[in-house]
């Protein structure tokens, strides 16, 4: 077995990592499965999915648009029923007389259908108004950015696809769980070597510590990648069980989470970005944790400090998550490893940072900052681990 394999085996052979990972996974599953019996999960969106196109047509019907706008975006199903496809009412009629957890299913579905239509009309009206305002507004980088984004947005669709839930997977909890398991596995990579005095013995070997360094790094990154894949697959399976797979792709700006955000992406594209971000973030976290481990004599302190590094980014990011403009105060959170693993805030909200006469997407800054952190962590790690190396 080569050195990478040996190092990887050393990490994965820690039984406690898997026991705690299993406990965490079970607790996570319990939390997600708790939503399975909610009325909203069982009926609201599922029942209306067969009439998705009809609801969309209704929202883009000029007669409906005029009526909904005139009523201040607050209409009942009965009011708009004569103007929309009868298929919607027929679909809802199937649930007539059905009661679930005290809810009259047909009544709730009528309210939901009306809400989806009025919400879609409202979004389109608001965006048209914004475009009009922006065209007459002063030429600032922010106005230019908004105009560019709003005019290039895909056609907004009714929010019935379940992408809201799927994008929520990586919002906060899963990045925290992945980070916890990764840190648990690799925080002792160097510290344990110091504790067992192995680092001194390594100096007497032919290749010293330098060769081992790259193998340890690679093995740790492999472990991080494996953890990300396991938990992302596990979360996807849980969400498939609870919410079902999204039946079609939809523009991100159709989702309630990103109401009026200048995002031109599609949900599937965004979810794939989140998966890649999760993987890259875990690898950056690995580099930082290894760097901390290389100067800590105790794996406990190494785990604690790495945890503090990740937790600070999480707290900072969640404190300033509202809005679509980054500021100097919010940047530390937005450039954090947590932010890269989640991407919900910086990429989902399409945040920008204004520098001079240009608006730079914050997501790009996050990637650059994390790449710098990764390189600096590796250099420092190499320095801390091999600085007592003796020349040949």
């Amino acid at each position, binding site marked *: 077995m080569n050195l990478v394999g040996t190092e990887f085996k050393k990490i994965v052979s820690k039984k*406690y990592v898997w026991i*705690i990972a299993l406990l965490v996974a079970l607790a996570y599953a319990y*939390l997600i499965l708790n939503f399975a019996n909610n009325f909203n999960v069982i009926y609201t969106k599922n029942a209306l999915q067969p009439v998705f196109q009809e609801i969309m047509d209704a929202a883009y019907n000029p007669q409906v648009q005029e009526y909904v706008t005139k009523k201040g975006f607050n209409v009942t199903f009965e009011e708009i029923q004569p103007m929309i496809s009868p298929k919607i009412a027929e679909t809802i009629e199937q649930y007539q007389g059905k009661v679930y957890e005290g809810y009259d299913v047909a009544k709730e579905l009528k309210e939901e259908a009306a809400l989806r239509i009025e919400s879609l009309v409202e979004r389109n009206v608001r965006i048209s108004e914004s475009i009009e305002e922006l065209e007459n507004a002063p030429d600032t980088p922010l106005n230019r950015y908004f105009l560019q984004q709003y005019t290039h947005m895909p056609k907004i669709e009714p929010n019935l696809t379940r992408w809201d839930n799927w994008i929520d997977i990586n919002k906060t909890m899963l990045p925290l769980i992945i980070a*916890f398991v990764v840190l648990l596995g690799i925080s*002792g990579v160097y510290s344990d070597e110091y504790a067992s005095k192995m680092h001194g013995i390594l100096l007497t070997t032919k290749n010293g510590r330098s060769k081992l360094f790259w193998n340890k790094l690679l093995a740790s990154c492999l472990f991080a990648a494996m953890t990300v894949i396991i938990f992302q697959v596990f979360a996807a399976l849980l969400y498939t069980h609870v919410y079902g797979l999204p039946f079609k792709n939809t523009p991100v700006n159709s989702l309630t989470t990103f109401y009026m955000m200048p995002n031109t992406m599609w949900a599937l594209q965004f979810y794939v970005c989140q998966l890649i971000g999760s993987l890259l973030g875990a690898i950056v976290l690995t580099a930082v944790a290894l760097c901390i481990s290389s100067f800590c004599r105790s794996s*406990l302190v190494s785990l604690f400090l790495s945890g503090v590094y990740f937790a600070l980014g999480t707290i900072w990011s969640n404190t300033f998550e509202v809005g679509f403009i980054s500021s100097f105060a919010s940047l530390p959170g937005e450039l954090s490893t947590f932010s890269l693993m989640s991407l919900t805030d910086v990429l989902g909200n399409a945040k920008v940072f204004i520098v001079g006469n240009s608006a730079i997407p914050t997501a790009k800054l996050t990637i650059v900052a994390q790449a710098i952190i990764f390189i600096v962590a590796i250099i420092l790690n190499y320095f801390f681990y091999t600085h007592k190396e003796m020349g040949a």
Partner: protein
Amino acid sequence: MNNKRGSRGYLLRTQLRALVTDRGTLYIFLAYIVFAFGACFSGNFRDTWMKVINGDIFATLTNLYMPFFLMAAILLVISPIFAGDKKSGMEEIGDTCFYGKHAWKVCKVQAAFLYIFVMCSAGYVFTLFMSLFSKTPPNFTQRVFEFGNSGVVMTNAQFYLFSFVLQYIGLLFLTSIVLAASSKSDDPIIPLAVGACLCGFELAFDFVVFSPILWEFNLFRLLKPFTILVPTTLFTSPLKAILAVASTFMVFTALLVWVTLNGALKEEPKPQLDLAQH
């Protein structure tokens, strides 16, 4: 020869001193002081980072933020108390002691509980001093949460004392979990991970009500004592909630302490009484 050095009291004091003077304690306490200083003397800091309860900075700091620093101290400082000894091969020393491993283990548990008391008290005292010098000092005689529909009537001073007691019970529970995990493992990472897992999921159950039982009997109901004063569907009277939640956690704490100490009894060699007479 100084015989006092072999006494249980000496063992306890030594262990407590080791915990209090640990670098982890110092750094975490320093971090809390910096945070509390910002909260008391910078309006900008308060607006950005904090949610002030009822305009009372002292209650906010002690009820919402200090518990997290104390939890960090427990996880970092108490985790290696048994597991660290095992990892470094020092646990056998207990067998060579006059009172045996059991007394040695009891002293460690007592020291850990005293350590939490010292840390919690120090946190309260420092926060009180800082808030007294801030622009909004606490008013001890004013009735607490006048706007709320709480059935418990008490002054701010009584509420601070009440918070201290409930938080201490909550922290004792967390400490006993960490101690039990530490006594059963040979790597300090394990108790830290177990404690962190527990805190993380208790926090999740506190934020979102997945199950009313898990929300009512939550560690954070004790660590954030102002939340227990509000009547809920399960406990219409806050007094019932306080009694039920606090006594449940105390029972669990006692059980965990028994688990921690029981491990030592099994490992301990048979006592040789005649050795003491020599």
